[in-house]
């Protein structure tokens, strides 16, 4: 049975079951968070490092969790920050203001063969997503793959629902255009 936030927080409140609460939380949310990060960074090893980083932050911050949102949304927010920071660092590494090099790096990993067991159209979809600006890609992912309502996305990304709808609409249009090329 999937433990609810209330059950986990109740367990966490007891010093003797704090670690058990965290273990159950990891077990509950690790796949969602891993895939969220993996689609952003493409490479498994990078995703693995980042998802561990996220859960270490969760462990260190759970005692100050303010219950203003669900735990999962809070973890998504941490994952988003960790991932964007990672992509920012990559950009700095290439010493450029453009994300093109970062995208090229991600595309290289996508085509390396070790990361994707996809057919041609799926490969094109991933390429189209990599071409989106990172924040727009986050919006696209949360809506398209995680099927998150705009209200929840607004809580995760701390952006108005209107702005998110517009961003998603633009992202979908761009992805569709990319898919049509050579289709």
């Amino acid at each position, binding site marked *: 049975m999937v433990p609810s936030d209330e059950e986990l927080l109740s367990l966490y409140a007891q010093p003797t079951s704090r670690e058990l609460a965290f273990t159950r939380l990891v077990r509950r949310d690790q796949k969602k968070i891993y895939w969220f990060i993996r689609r952003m960074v493409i490479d*498994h090893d990078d995703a693995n490092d980042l998802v561990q980083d996220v859960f270490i932050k969760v462990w260190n911050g759970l005692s100050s969790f303010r219950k203003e949102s669900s735990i999962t949304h809070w973890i998504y927010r941490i994952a988003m920050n960790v991932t964007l920071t990672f992509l920012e660092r990559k950009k700095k590494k290439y010493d450029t203001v453009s994300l093109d090099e970062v995208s090229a790096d991600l595309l290289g990993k996508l085509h390396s063969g070790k990361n994707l067991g996809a057919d041609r159209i799926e490969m094109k979809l991933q390429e189209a997503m990599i071409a989106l600006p990172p924040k727009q890609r986050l919006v696209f992912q949360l809506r398209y793959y995680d099927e998150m309502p705009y209200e929840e996305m607004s809580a995760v990304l701390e952006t108005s629902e209107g702005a998110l709808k517009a961003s998603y609409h633009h992202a979908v249009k761009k992805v*569709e255009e990319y*898919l049509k090329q050579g289709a």
Partner: protein
Amino acid sequence: MDERKNITDELKATAPLLSSLSKKNPFVIPEGYFNELEESIRVATGIEPAKELQAKSPENPLMVPPGYFENLPAVIVQKAGSRKPGGMIRTIKKRWWAIAASVAAILIISISVLRDRPAETLASGTPIDTTFLLLENASGLPDAVVVEFYDMDNSSSSSDSLQHEYLIEASGIDAETILSL
């Protein structure tokens, strides 16, 4: 469910090609990765695996090793496959039948002995009587000892301790065992 329909409708209207694609995950991950991930996070946060086994929740105080239920069906199938057909279900072991039969036999003998004894002996119900009956049923005292026991005068000259001494000597069983019966 409504949200999923909203998202699908939204996509169909704006991006028919994208909406026709399956959302299956195209990425590959190493086998057993999520179990390893959980372990890596535990190590990174300093949480010991044993803690989960020690911790108890109010609704279920008994814990099982991590991954136990995930692996259980495969273990059962594997074990079932290695068994010979027929004769595989045995709910009570043979030795338990033997113990149960012995206990039943002792009870039947005890009841029959109690029923056959004179009314005054049954009425007395002294501890030495009980010891005698138990010894008789458990070890099978010789007839001569039984006769001698009943001939002893319970009321005046013979005390319980004297009868105990007699039984110990006659049965060959030590005093501690008799007292524990």
